[in-house]
């Protein structure tokens, strides 16, 4: 399986303001669906919930192994936090399209120069963390009928697309951005799939 992984960073080492070394892990924005015969992706609540929790758990333990204190914020309800998560989704798309993708901006060449704005400082004080990590994932899995069509060569399979950012809460700047688009990809409906996803996601993560 060919994987297309790409990352950008503006810092190779993390700067901590306290020995606690805390990263806030924002609830991953995850939607899994079933790719039906006709190409309609049918969202699945159970797969989505399961994958979000599995990725959270897997990321949390992988980061802990690097000596980081992880605080997970699941089930966002605070309006400011919800907006920040949505802002990340939008900015992430912009990075994909205008720096890494087909519509490159002349001002966004090699350096990673994007920010969610200084409003993130509120989270720094609220959670006592220096960084926040955001993950965005959309994934689909072929239904039985779809697989039959694939066998006939009349259709392609599901695909997995994800991106993640590490944000310095002192400035709001995105200091690490990773995109990962994998036709096929690991099966995120299972725990093992989440671990494989996380391991791949965290290559090139700042020290």
């Amino acid at each position, binding site marked *: 399986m060919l994987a297309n992984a790409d990352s950008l960073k503006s810092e190779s080492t993390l700067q901590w303001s306290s020995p606690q070394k805390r990263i806030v892990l924002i609830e991953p924005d995850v*939607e899994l669906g079933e790719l*039906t015969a*006709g190409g309609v992706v*049918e*969202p*699945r*609540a159970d797969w*989505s*919930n399961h994958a979000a929790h599995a990725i959270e758990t897997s990321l949390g333990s992988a980061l802990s192994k690097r000596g980081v204190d992880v605080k997970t914020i699941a089930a966002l309800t605070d309006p400011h936090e919800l907006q920040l998560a949505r802002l990340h989704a939008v900015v992430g798309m912009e990075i994909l399209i205008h720096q890494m993708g087909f519509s490159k901006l002349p001002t966004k060449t090699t350096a990673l120069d994007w920010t969610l704005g200084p409003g993130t400082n509120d989270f720094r004080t609220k959670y006592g963390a220096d960084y926040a990590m955001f993950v965005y994932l959309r994934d689909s899995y072929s239904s039985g009928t779809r697989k039959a069509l694939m066998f006939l060569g009349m*259709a392609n399979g599901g695909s997995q697309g994800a991106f993640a950012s590490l944000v310095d809460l002192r400035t709001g700047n995105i200091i690490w951005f990773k995109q990962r688009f994998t036709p096929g990809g690991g099966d995120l409906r299972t725990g093992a799939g989440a671990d494989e996803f996380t391991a791949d996601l965290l290559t090139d993560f700042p020290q």
Partner: protein
Amino acid sequence: MFVSSAARAEPTSNATIPWAQLPVGYHPATDTDEGGIWMIGERAEAEVRTSPLVIKDPALNAYLRRIVCKLSGPYCDSIRIYVVDIPYVNARMAPNGMLQVWTGLLLRAQNEAEISFVLGHEISHYLLRHTVAQYRRVRDQAGTIAVIGALTAGIGSLAKLGLAGSASSFSREEEREADQRGFELATAAGYDPAQCVALWQQELAEETAAPKDGEFAAFAANHPATTERVSTMTAMANVAAAQRANWQTNADAFRKAVQPFRAQWVSENIALAQYEQSLLVLQLLLKSEPKSGELQYYLAEVYRRRNADGDSAKALAAYAAAVTTRGAPPAVYRGLGLASLKAGDKAAAHTAFQKYLAAVPAADDRAMIEYYLSQP
């Protein structure tokens, strides 16, 4: 033909509303297609909940909730109302019970009964689980096309045309069913059936007046207020009228609930720069409140901004009328000043501008008005 991943028993109805397709407090299983659609609805609702366009005023929300509860009985707690400040006529029910009511609708309604039929219609979409049916239709048609396409190349494209027509909206049957059931809910709650078509008639009039390629026309195309629907509902109303002697419209309660927002909503309507439909809206409002200085002021504003042939004279006349009528906002003097300037009457313009600045000393366009005053 193509069954979704989990074939489950469909939920049963509730005895209070026997035609409902779900019980009170229903939530679909998370491993079903309906569960997936509800998840999307919940995500959309998380965004709506934090949108700056949502009007959170407790009194207005409590008022609308009372109506929804009158109509839906035990299902009331399954429905969450969001008043969205968008100046178009719309109400939309998501499959998970999120009900949006746009302020363009509340601006044009004349009484509680009129909106009860619209809310009844939307509540019926929820009770009849139309969104699931619509989604399954799209998915199954797409599947049918794909398989047919695989087996016999060439037919697929014709079927795709059929798919495009049904994908974006409820079917005519579903809309008819929601009209019918919504009508039943509203009349069961005592609302006057004669009020059921007023909003549709207004929308039809506005669609006719709107420029064919304008923004309003594009919006109206997605929300057809067809003459067929109007005649069907009129027929239902005629049959139902004799069933009671004391139908309610609750015009006073309605007016009291929306009055605090009226000026804001009218301004937003005018700001669309769709002046033909703004005139129809103002004429509608003036019909029941001919002595409203506020409405007369806004009517003048529409003429002034539209600025078509003969409009400056109409604007001047309307400002002059508004000035002498109770309730006109202080900005009426500014309008009178601008219209007088246009008509070449500098003396009247200056008098009006001075009255404006006296009434609104902290006006944010003071510098502009002072400039006009400084011109000989």
